[in-house]
């Protein structure tokens, strides 16, 4: 029967589109931004049912004048904030140098954090030694803010003779157990649920450590995200479930993964999870919300879902060109500003920082990064100098090398 003969209208498929494409004028009028200080701070043992509206707002501390305001302010000292600024500036300088190194052919691939530095740098400071992050590829601030060696990071990026991972992993897929940084997979979302398992293990053993899971807006569409929320919710695991919403999943705008849900944070509501949304470009807000969730987990009150609202200023990686899918000036129009500039301005308002000292710090940090780079390059880069041996390739597949691998190593003649 012809469909026109029925009483039903033909169905149509709806494919979401971003507000603007290349050539258009950037428009973030759909991002509703409350005033800094406007969102209340509940007690950490608040009933998740009573704070559902936090999934639809944005917790902010720094206002336009660079002042820290509202109930989430006041947690960090001048020294801690100056250190936070230094971490973010270091990460930014590190990224700039490594991005250039990739363009110079010293490595195959790189991913930078530009615009997202506050999230991983501030979050790290809310954790304690022994806690474990299950990061994605854009949380190297967790390492920088915990004092991990930049030389070791660069050796990993270069896959050189001092690469802690012996050349086995793509650049930036770091691993450091000592710094609470789980080996990055490179597959998306798989580690979100592993963090829940790690946290469950800590609870099974009556330990005091907690875990932090990390995922991007795009990867929340993976079934592992759903599995993680189910398990975290069921067993009340001491885990913080972090979603970094930087608006773009390579070329795909966040609306493709978000669908009809109001926000990514709102995904947690159906699981009965406290679900908070925070200004990801506000170092103080990120720290305050992380601290709240950490305390909740530590007090055995269970998991918290946090959505960091931010913007990926750079390309996804060195393998894509954002001007092909979004307006070139979109990042300038991003209404939450730049995390480094915002913290800098706040420190100036506090009277402990100045433009001159900032410039001076930039130069000092760059010197430190360049010195680390020189040292790392003395151990080789991907295509030049010393590198991990081919013999190493066969090691570490198992604790003990099985006969078939021994035979293959002989065949390889290494």
């Amino acid at each position, binding site marked *: 029967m012809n469909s026109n003969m029925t009483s039903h209208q033909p169905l149509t498929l709806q494919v979401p589109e971003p507000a603007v494409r290349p050539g258009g004028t950037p428009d973030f009028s759909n991002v509703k931004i409350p005033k800094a200080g406007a969102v209340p701070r509940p007690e950490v043992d608040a009933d998740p049912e009573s704070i559902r509206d936090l999934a639809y707002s944005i917790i902010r501390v720094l206002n336009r004048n660079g002042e820290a305001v509202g109930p989430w302010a006041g947690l960090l000292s001048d020294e801690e904030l100056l250190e936070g600024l230094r971490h973010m500036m270091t990460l930014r300088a590190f990224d700039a140098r490594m991005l250039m190194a990739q363009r110079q052919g010293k490595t195959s691939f790189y991913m930078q954090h530009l615009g997202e530095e506050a999230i991983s740098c501030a979050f790290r400071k809310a954790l304690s030694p022994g806690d474990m992050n299950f990061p994605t590829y854009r949380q190297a601030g967790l390492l920088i803010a915990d004092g991990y060696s930049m030389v070791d990071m660069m050796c990993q990026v270069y896959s050189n003779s001092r690469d802690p991972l012996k050349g*086995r992993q793509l650049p930036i897929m770091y691993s450091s157990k000592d710094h609470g940084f789980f080996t990055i997979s490179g597959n998306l979302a798989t580690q979100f649920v592993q963090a829940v398992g790690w946290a469950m293990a800590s609870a099974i053993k009556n330990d005091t450590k907690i875990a932090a899971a990390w995922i991007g807006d795009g990867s929340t569409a993976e079934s592992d995200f759903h599995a993680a929320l189910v398990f975290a919710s069921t067993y009340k695991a001491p885990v913080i479930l972090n979603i970094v919403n930087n608006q773009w999943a390579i070329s795909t705008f966040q609306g493709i993964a978000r669908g009809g849900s109001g926000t990514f944070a709102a995904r947690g509501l159906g699981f009965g999870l406290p679900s908070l949304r925070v200004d990801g470009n506000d170092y103080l807000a990120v720290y305050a919300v992380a601290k709240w969730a950490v305390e909740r987990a530590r007090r055995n009150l269970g998991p918290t879902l946090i959505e960091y609202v931010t913007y990926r200023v750079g390309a996804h990686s060195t393998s894509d060109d954002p001007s092909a899918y979004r307006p070139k000036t979109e990042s300038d129009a991003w209404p939450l500003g730049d995390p480094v500039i915002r913290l800098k301005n706040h420190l100036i308002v506090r009277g402990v920082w100045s433009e001159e000292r900032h410039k001076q710090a930039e130069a000092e940090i760059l010197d430190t990064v360049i010195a680390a780079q020189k040292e790392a390059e003395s151990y080789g880069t991907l295509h030049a100098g010393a590198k991990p041996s081919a013999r190493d390739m066969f090691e570490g597949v198992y604790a003990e090398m099985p006969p078939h691998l021994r035979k293959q190593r002989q065949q390889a003649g290494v």
Partner: protein
Amino acid sequence: MARMTMVEAIRDAMDVMMGRDDGVVVFGEDVGYFGGVFRSTQGLQQKYGKTRCFDTPISEAGIVGTAIGMAAYGLKPCVEIQFADYMYPAYDQIVSEAARLRYRSNGEFTCPLVVRMPTGGGIFGGQTHSQSPEALFTHVSGLKTIVPSNPYDAKGLLIAAIEDPDPVIFLEPKRLYNGPFDGHHDRPVTPWSKHDLSEVPSGYFTVPLGKATVVREGSAMTVLAYGTMVYVAQAAAAETDIDAEIIDLRTLLPLDMDTIAASVRKTGRCVIVHEATLTSGFGAELAALVQEACFFHLEAPIARVAGWDTPYPHAQEWDYFPGPARVGRALVETMEG
């Protein structure tokens, strides 16, 4: 020593290890209060408490994903996927994560994890309760894959698997749970109590991974089998009166090539049998390895008997299953070849 079924032996292995090591945790769908749909975990929650043995949501990716996190923390999870046919949602976690943690982190993080899965057909389970996916695991570097065929081995191998520092896939031929099934589906079931290998030591013992065993000595040919097919091969050899040497591989990876090659060099003939589909099955790997190691000793082409390359059917289960008649024909043809 006690007489045990395969289910009882598997449960006993977990019981022994949970008693010895409080890092051993057991979980999966229906595994806790109820004790598993095949009863393999019965009583463990009552004995060790519900933080050591518990029910999970129906999410294989969640079960294996959380188990990987626990293993990285330092526990020794032994999880159950209710049927091997249900493991596909967990395959990414097994292949991309469990198998590679040690390698990609240069040993900083490891994954001492056991994933138990009932495998194989013979219970009218249709296409979603009958599959034998072992080749999907042996193809993955970083995994070990085990298929026990009797209560003694099941207990000893499972204890060894739980103690192993790397992820182990433990495939339990479900048709063997309650007896050594030889493929004669129209005959009365033989219970384990009448089989020597149902005598299982109490307490702790291991059967080492990576070691095959000769279950029937012979000089005319070598039959390579594992799981249910060990008994089918024995029935076929008896019924064709061929002096076949039958090897139970027990561990598919790492494979005991020494035992295999010594036997084929002695007999000059080799038949490989498995229940899984033929094409790209583990038999293909075995055939390649045997010809590499024993080419100048072979007097006939290596033969494979396997499940047909179709989904596992329901009504036609016994037309699909490579029973003693089909295996017997391959033995006869290989003797003539």
